[in-house]
């Protein structure tokens, strides 16, 4: 019987010829990732077990990105614990300050994660590496600790839900809209425990940045992972970056799926997820009058140079509405530098925006732009839970970068079309 791309990668990791959904396996891991919040707890667990060294200092990656630059004294202490851990372990991949970025973009940009990998990370959006054809999933700190010691972890092979997207995308519609639309259709637990496999002719021509957003948000449908079969776009992205040999896997024609969902994208408008679930989506034409106080663009979901270009194309020559605070969060230092070279930072400054260093910042209600009671933000991030960006009575609306930028100018949620822009 044929296997899906996910089953093939997991079979390889388990050293088995084949695996099937529901099977419990022990798989060798290619990479384990952690950040300032989750690594602190994992380091403690390691100490409790009494193990001195991680299994391989080149395969444990730590990025200090959540509450950095240290947002308060407690965060500073937490980062200190993690930094000390990274030094003691002699980790070859440790990122903070001048070489920092939002963890997932750091791993992708630097070719630390490669196609065909099996990766676990102490961050739920670790599923993002499925964009380049890796199996990756989020775990908690105890699993992370166990993985760091043994280089292995147990998994239940997930069933796969296949999504087939067909047709040409409308102007100002991208990967972010496809995934928001999909979550809107199936719900926040629509793919619970499953692997989401993104396919179809729309996907064949979807740029890497769009795939990033989609794989990133697989968790928002409850999925264990989200994956794209690597192709020419993947090759182009990983060539010159990959630090290790990589392998392209693809699903067999007779692979078994739990469900196949076909989506004609031709009629899909830019999507906005209303509070307080990513599944609470509406078409941009059906949003109504929603004034905003803040617009936050960037983060792991939409913090690439392509995302910043999209936002800048809308903001160029325009001023942000006087009621709105525009905050820009480039994904990595490299993206920041590139945005500077291309003059995008100037566009943001001219429009009245504030540019942050790369950090998760307000996305998870950490720092750098929290919301007061009753305030509303549009954000290109991935979650709009109650109180996610600040006060429990504040609201977050999710969108793509172009919609967010247009909304910053309009002072309410709206589209670049209202500004007379064509894609």
């Amino acid at each position, binding site marked *: 019987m044929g296997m899906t791309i996910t089953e093939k990668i997991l079979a390889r990791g388990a050293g088995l010829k084949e695996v099937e959904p529901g099977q*419990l396996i*022990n798989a060798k891991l290619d990479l384990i990732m952690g950040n300032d*919040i*989750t690594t*602190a*707890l994992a380091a*403690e*667990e390691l100490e*409790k*077990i*009494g193990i001195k060294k991680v299994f391989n200092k080149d395969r444990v990656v730590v990025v200090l990105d*959540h*509450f950095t630059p240290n*947002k*308060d004294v*407690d*965060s500073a*202490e*937490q980062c200190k614990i993690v930094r000390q851990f990274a030094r003691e372990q002699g980790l070859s991949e440790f990122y903070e300050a001048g070489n920092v970025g939002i963890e997932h973009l750091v791993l992708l940009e630097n070719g630390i994660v490669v196609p065909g990998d099996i990766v676990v*990370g*102490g*961050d*739920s959006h*670790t599923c993002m590496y499925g964009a380049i054809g890796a199996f990756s*999933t*989020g*775990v*908690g*700190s*105890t*699993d992370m*600790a*166990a993985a760091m010691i*043994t280089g*292995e972890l147990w998994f239940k092979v997930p069933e796969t839900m296949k999504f087939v997207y067909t047709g040409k995308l409308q102007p100002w519609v991208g990967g972010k809209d496809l995934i928001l639309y999909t979550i809107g259709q199936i719900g*926040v*637990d629509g793919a*619970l*425990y499953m692997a989401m496999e993104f396919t179809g002719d729309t996907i064949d021509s979807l740029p890497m940045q769009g795939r990033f957003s989609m794989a990133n948000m697989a*968790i928002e449908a*409850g999925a*264990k992972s989200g994956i794209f079969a690597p192709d020419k776009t993947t090759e182009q992205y990983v060539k010159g970056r990959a630090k290790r040999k990589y392998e392209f896997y693809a699903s067999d024609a007779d692979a078994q799926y739990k469900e196949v969902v076909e989506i004609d994208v031709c009629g899909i408008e830019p999507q906005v997820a209303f509070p307080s*679930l990513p599944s609470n989506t509406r078409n941009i034409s059906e949003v109504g009058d929603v004034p905003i106080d803040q617009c936050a663009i960037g983060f792991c979901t939409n913090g690439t140079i392509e995302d910043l270009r999209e936002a800048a194309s809308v903001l160029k020559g325009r001023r942000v509405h006087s009621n709105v605070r525009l905050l820009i969060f480039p994904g990595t230092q490299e993206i920041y530098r590139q945005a500077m070279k291309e003059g995008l930072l100037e566009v943001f400054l001219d429009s009245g925006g504030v540019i942050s260093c790369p950090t998760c910042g307000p996305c*998870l*209600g*950490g720092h750098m732009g929290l919301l007061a009671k009753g305030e509303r933000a549009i954000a290109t991030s991935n*979650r709009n*839970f*109650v*109180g*996610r960006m600040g006060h*429990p009575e504040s609201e977050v609306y999710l969108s793509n970068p172009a919609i967010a930028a247009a909304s910053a100018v309009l002072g309410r949620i709206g589209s670049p079309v209202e500004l007379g822009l064509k894609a």
Partner: protein
Amino acid sequence: MKLNGRVWKFNDNIDTDVIIPASFLNTSDREELGRHCFAYLRPDFTRNVKTGDIIVAGRNFGCGSSREHAPLALKEAGVRLIIAKSFARIFYRNAFNIGLPLLESEEVQDRVSEGDRISVDLLSGEITGGSLEKALFARPIPDFMMEIVRSGGLVKYIKEKGTF
């Protein structure tokens, strides 16, 4: 393994951000985490929760972030069992890993009331007491997960076994 406890009821999609808001994640001090469990959603929770209490919830409990601080905060606050229609998968692993058992049942949330005192047999999944006229049965905990619970979490399990 039998548990007795008072019921706290919750709805669908209780996410890890409301279980322990990110502003309290600048520490891994368990007691500190426990003090802020459901800080905004149910400010009365930590004042009134007692050791042994049981959370009964709807679908997709624990969705959102991978923060193990969420089950840790619940356990530290005194929660000893969560029964839900379904759990988000990272939360599911995390809870067992720290020795907090979870049971899945489609019916319990609809049949018990807030404040009910119920008895739960973790092995058979049998749930009785409170507003329940007859016993309900949750899906039994898989053997492998039950072994972790018996040890008191993955770390203790590993220590006992000396291996993984």
